[in-house]
């Protein structure tokens, strides 16, 4: 049995995660959710004074915005679309007959206007663009959403539906790269406080195909993405638990985000993989939260 299966099995047997029969689609126990809530309060303690505007979107986004985002150019393999039955009564009868005999009933489902959110910040850009030019001090936003990525796996740190907390910064190049550096420093400090061993490394997104290899190489060459890696199922191959992304003016140009003086805005975001951070804590300190080191429990606000 490999180490990934064994951590997943232990999470199931303690009830921290709940098996649904689909790889990467799990229920969470109250204790698991509580760890995430506490870690989010730690995030608030670091970022709260920055004055970000908080917004919460459901885990589905406007399909037209998804199409504009260009996600299908880069990650077609990860996207999830929402389809529904849109027929009449006769169609319903044939649907039921098809299901009865185990046929391909999904083939007549029609696309809806909703696509599953691939990253918490995706609904933000069109929302901000609609407001007009950014204020003089730029924009800072606080987001959290369940996100979907179609990548079934028995690695508990690679889930298909998971939560991402994000801060997104819009402004000049200097402004947003300073924001990114601030959060890289904060990320290292936060993880040290909760007793996690971390490394920071340059990274790339999982772009699709050979064209994607070139995009990935370009992204690395320009240091556009960094990841904070923490061991979860493997010390040799630690898991990305935070990412720090500088989009240059790509999103600004795509969405029409402009500074007060009319220049195209640069953007950057910092993302926390909340389930991954919780899993890193369980992997490091054990599955019984009562037995976690006193200083870690204190940082997370557990009463002793």
């Amino acid at each position: 049995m490999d180490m990934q299966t064994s951590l997943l099995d232990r999470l199931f047997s303690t009830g921290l995660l709940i098996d649904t029969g689909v790889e990467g689609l799990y229920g969470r126990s109250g204790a698991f959710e509580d760890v995430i809530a506490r870690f989010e309060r730690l995030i608030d303690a670091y970022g709260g004074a920055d004055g970000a505007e908080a917004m919460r979107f459901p885990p589905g986004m406007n399909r037209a915005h998804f199409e504009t985002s260009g996600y299908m150019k880069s990650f077609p393999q990860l996207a999830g679309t929402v389809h529904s039955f849109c027929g009449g009564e006769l169609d319903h009868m044939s649907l039921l007959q098809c299901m009865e005999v185990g046929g391909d009933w999904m083939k007549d489902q029609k696309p809806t206007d909703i696509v599953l959110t691939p990253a918490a910040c995706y609904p933000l850009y069109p929302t901000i663009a609609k407001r007009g030019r950014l204020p003089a001090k730029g924009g800072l936003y606080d987001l959290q959403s369940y996100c979907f990525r179609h990548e079934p796996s028995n690695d508990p740190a690679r889930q298909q539906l998971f939560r991402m907390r994000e801060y997104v910064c819009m402004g000049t190049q200097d402004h947003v790269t300073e924001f990114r550096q601030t959060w890289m420093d904060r990320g290292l400090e936060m993880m040290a406080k909760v007793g996690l061993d971390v490394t920071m490394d340059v990274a790339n997104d999982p772009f699709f195909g050979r064209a994607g290899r070139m995009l990935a190489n370009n992204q690395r060459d320009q240091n556009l993405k960094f990841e904070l890696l923490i061991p979860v199922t493997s010390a040799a191959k630690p898991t990305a638990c935070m990412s720090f992304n500088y989009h240059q003016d790509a999103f600004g140009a795509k969405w029409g985000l402009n500074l007060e003086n009319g220049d195209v805005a640069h953007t950057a975001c910092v993302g926390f993989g909340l389930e991954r951070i919780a899993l890193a804590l369980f992997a490091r300190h054990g599955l019984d939260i009562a037995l976690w080191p006193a200083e870690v429990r204190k940082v997370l606000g557990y009463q002793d």
Partner: protein
Amino acid sequence: MKQKIRDILAKHGALPVPVDQLAEDSDLYAAGLSSFASVQVMLGIEEAFDVEFPDNLLNRKSFQSIAAITRAVEGLTGSAEAAE
């Protein structure tokens, strides 16, 4: 070969300036070549010259200038002497 490369750049590069105004060693990224457009150029060149870029050439440097693209294509087609 260089004219063919210029034609591909004009078709796929989505550059804000006319390609024939660019010198051979002009920085294409400075001229406005985006990451996505450079991928389109790469695919266009593969098709036109019937070559496949290996992983070690799939990077920004290979598409930095018309001269750099020419060098890469010459390396892949083995036509360096023929081009002299």
